[in-house]
């Protein structure tokens, strides 16, 4: 009797372990099965490189959205990465213990704040600031980049901090012993050794930024045209899906699903490079 229970439970645990495999297969299947035929119908080049998105005229070119996603993500990286890495250095090497006990949960909290709240904050604070600074509507690449840069901070700080902490203490001590100051030792002995871990953090940050939806929709302006400058409005792939999925039908709907396929492929590439770097680190 006991034996049978042992065996069935083992099989049951094995089955639960397969859930994530099944989930990935299902996600791939449903996205590709609906998206790929649409791409075929529109034409790969017309779809990926088309500069016009006019669903009412059956013109589906998502280049503006791909560029939009890339611009906004690049902006977020330019703003978020330097602050994130420096803050991680502070957390790992400069922070007094008492302050750390407050700062660490605070940064974890930052990761937990819902993106819709970030978006609202961006709309109420960053957009008006941009309006007074640069004029115009205040919604656009720069605004979205600033907001996304803030949102990816906790991801980068968390991973970069543990990468810096993983560097053997002897690097730092050796540098001190050679007469370097605390700052020089941290920046020029410890930091280079944590390079690949920090890079992994940045890549994860890129994944977060490119997949972010709700916050971007609220502050990016959402015009489906190739942006002409960092102040002009922009629509990302994620925004494109949410904005039009509600009323889309037939080829239009499938074109939106195909947009998510492109996004999914971006994410897969990012994930792959993340795990490659993590593996190399070991």
């Amino acid at each position, binding site marked *: 009797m*006991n034996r049978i229970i042992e065996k069935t439970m083992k099989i049951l645990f094995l089955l639960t372990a397969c859930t994530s495999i099944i989930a990935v297969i299902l996600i791939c299947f449903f996205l590709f099965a609906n998206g790929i035929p649409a791409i075929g119908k529109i034409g790969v080049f017309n779809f990926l490189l088309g500069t016009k998105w006019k669903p009412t005229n059956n013109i589906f070119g998502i280049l503006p959205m791909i560029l939009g996603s890339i611009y906004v993500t690049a902006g977020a990286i330019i703003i978020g990465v330097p602050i994130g890495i420096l803050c991680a250095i*502070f957390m790992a090497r400069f922070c007094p213990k008492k302050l750390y006990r407050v700062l660490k949960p605070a940064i974890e909290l930052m990761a937990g704040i819902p993106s819709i709240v970030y978006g609202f904050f961006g709309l109420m604070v960053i957009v008006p600031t941009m309006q007074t600074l640069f004029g115009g509507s205040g919604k656009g690449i720069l605004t979205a980049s600033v907001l996304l840069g803030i949102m990816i901070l906790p991801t980068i700080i968390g991973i970069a901090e543990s990468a810096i902490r993983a560097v053997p203490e002897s690097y730092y001590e050796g540098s001190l012993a050679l007469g370097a100051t605390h700052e020089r030792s941290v920046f020029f002995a410890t930091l280079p050794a944590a390079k690949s871990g920090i890079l992994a953090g940045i890549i994860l940050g890129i994944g977060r930024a490119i997949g972010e939806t709700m916050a971007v929709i609220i502050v990016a302006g959402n015009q489906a045209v190739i942006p002409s400058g960092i102040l002009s409005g922009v629509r990302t792939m994620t925004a494109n899906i949410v904005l039009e999925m509600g009323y889309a039908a037939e080829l239009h709907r499938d074109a939106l699903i195909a947009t*998510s396929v492109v996004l999914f492929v971006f994410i897969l590439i990012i994930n792959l490079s993340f795990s490659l770097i993590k593996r190399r680190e070991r």
Partner: protein
Amino acid sequence: MSNINKRDFRQKINTYKRNPVSLILALLVILSAVITAGILLFLIGYILVKGIPNLSLDLFAWEYTTKNVSMTPAIINTIIMTLLSLLISVPLGVGSAIYLVEYARRGNKLVAVVRITAETLSGIPSIVYGLFGFLLFVVACGWNYSILAGAMTLAIMVLPLIMRTTEEALKSVPDSYREGSFGLGAGRLRTVIRIVLPPAIPGILAGVILSIGRIVGETAALIFTAGTVAKAPKGLMSSGRTLAVHMYALLSEGLYTKQAYATALVLLVAVIGINAISNFAAKKLTKE
């Protein structure tokens, strides 16, 4: 660092005078920490200051109307959605973690595949989950926009999080516990359930609470699975918006800024509370 490396203030100033680069680096590091903490404090403070005056009894009226814009139905939906998602994802996530840590042998091929797929799942953006849930649950299963479709989608979304935290919690249980249990003649199942799981529970709980946070804050995955109906659901198959979706609807309608402030406040307070409880549970784990 011990006392050997301690220097007084004047010595520090002197070092910095001789090494301006170090001074600049130190200032930069401190500046970025101040910026990060400042942004968080400003965000919380801003929502508190703007949100509290906009709270009113009307916002918590039992029924939603366009006049009172009540968030009570949305809160009820959020609670149902959270419970239902956890009901699905916790057994699956904890079960897979138990298999990975307690049953699978070293070098098991399946384990590698499970790890890779779980990592992939945790990187997928929520809007992709939303579309997938729409295609599978809403269209293919024919459930329409429903609480159940939303909960299934969210359950898959938080699965890797629960798996990872449970795995870490199980791994932190010393092997001597298992050896002792086996030595007394207990089977593997009994060892797992009676000996290994109890000390791991705070860690598992911390992960579950973090997932609650993600579920409560999720918007993109729910718009096209659970829909945006602003009523408390009649059953699992009826559509209903959670608090975060409610907030998006308020913003996109553009007429309800005051109510949006109040909703943001409620969301933020909920997330802060959830994080605090999760930290508390995790601390309990490390103490024992």
